């Protein structure tokens, strides 16, 4: 890294630190002024709560549970949506058959399924996993179909002319060409499923970060509530960054997708 790049990095880090410091100072001042530790604890109290929850490992346990649910649901959603999306993108007839059903179900958000799913699955692991799978399924499917559609027809035709079998065309031509779009779709799926899991855990799960936020709210332990809210933000950011760096590693030729969600 050149020295000017290093300096620019340091400068932007400084600006970041300055903004966040201002925010924390403002928070502290308002907390002091309202003087109500249940409504608004000071940043120090919130930090204490984070340290304490981390030391008792409670923070990590809930985080691991939620992340585990997300990984399971994403795997289910991706293994259903990606093959179906590839097929729908390649086969017009299948698309005409399935697309209306998708468009009928898609506007019903995962969160709207919570009461019915609560009735079917009860409170436990199955409910958040179902809600997250449902929430992640549609962005991945729609993105995959769109990605396959953008694949250059000439590449597919060229492969076909040379007698490449259909399966190999899909694996060697269509999937690599659609990969950038596929990873963007996956990223959207992660974001929507993370929002859905918090809602699902808040209402109907005995564990996880969403549950923990609501549990400490019930106990009026606001610093702990804030600690878990921050955890939700950090985990959301971390998973998004992970997918972004995967995108960068797998498809270095594709432009970094613009940040507009």
């Amino acid at each position, binding site marked *: 890294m050149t020295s000017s790049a290093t300096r620019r990095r340091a400068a932007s880090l400084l600006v970041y630190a300055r903004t966040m410091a201002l925010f924390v100072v403002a928070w502290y001042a308002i907390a002091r002024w309202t003087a109500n530790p249940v409504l608004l604890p000071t940043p120090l109290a919130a930090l204490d709560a984070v340290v304490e929850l981390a030391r008792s490992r409670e923070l990590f346990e809930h985080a691991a549970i939620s992340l585990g649910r997300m990984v399971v649901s994403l795997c289910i959603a991706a293994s259903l949506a990606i093959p179906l999306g590839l097929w729908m993108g390649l086969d017009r007839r299948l698309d005409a058959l399935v697309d*209306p059903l998708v468009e009928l179900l898609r*506007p019903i958000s995962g*969160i709207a399924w919570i009461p019915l799913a609560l009735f079917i699955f009860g409170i436990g692991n199955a409910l958040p996993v179902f809600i997250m799978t449902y929430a992640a399924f549609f962005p991945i499917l729609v993105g995959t179909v769109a990605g396959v559609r953008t694949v250059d027809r000439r590449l597919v035709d060229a492969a076909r002319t040379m007698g490449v079998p259909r399966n190999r065309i899909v694996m060697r031509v269509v999937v690599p060409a659609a990969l950038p779009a596929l990873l963007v779709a996956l990223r959207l799926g992660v974001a929507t499923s993370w929002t859905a899991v*918090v809602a699902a855990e*808040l209402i109907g799960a005995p564990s996880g970060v969403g549950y923990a936020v609501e549990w400490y*709210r019930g106990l009026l332990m606001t610093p702990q509530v804030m600690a878990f809210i921050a955890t939700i*933000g950090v985990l959301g950011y971390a998973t*998004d960054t992970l997918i972004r760096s995967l995108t960068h590693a797998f498809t270095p030729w594709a432009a970094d997708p613009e940040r*507009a969600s």
Partner: protein
Amino acid sequence: VNAIGPRVALGAVLPLSLIAIWQAWGMAQPNPRVPLPTRVVDAAFAMTASGDLPMAILQSLGRVFAGFAIAALLAIPLGLAMGRSRAVERNVDPLVESFRPIAAIAILPLAILWFGTGTPAALMIVTYAAFFPIVLNTIAGAKRVNPTLVAAAATMGVSRWTTLRTVIVPAALPSIFVGLRIGLGVAWTAIVAAELAVGAKAGGGGSGGIGQMMFIFYAYSIELNRIVVCMIAVGLVALLLDRLLRALLRRLLPWTHA
């Protein structure tokens, strides 16, 4: 017309057969609570005739529009400032990026602590949810303004304020509209989640809306058919809001393709 006929017919096959299977499966169940397509239709008529469903939807929509308006009033000026001024962007961006990954619904317990289980807590969630898509798309739109136009305005001695009003905002408008459309969709999802959670945590003594209605059908009167009606209503409203904004966009900004 002839060309789309078979496509529509093909598209209807799967939903219709699924409904038929659901009906057949449900009629074979001994439990009378099992939701059935025919019972769902009956429930939909009953709920509409009694006015309960339209009332709940209107209540939720009112909150969505109020929260959405607050979010737009905050996010569009901020986004324009961030998109046009490097200094503003550098200083404010850390805050936006720090709060953006926090799912709106995660704020709900805090909102309940601060505002109780009434409308203000729901408004806060909706505003928070809609804020980020609007601000990000406004920034992107303000940045994409053709610099030649801005330079031309500056050369002709147009004031900064007039440039903003007559050059930058019109050029950024398509992108702002995309943000508004996404924001409205997110806001609708958020209000359903917020009302559900409030219903779940306030023991039914909350503040109404479609989300809470669903929770009451789940927890108190166990009417699955009515829950399905609410789910369909949630989906329909989401679809209508999206179509409405798209139509508005085409009407107001006919030169963009969105």
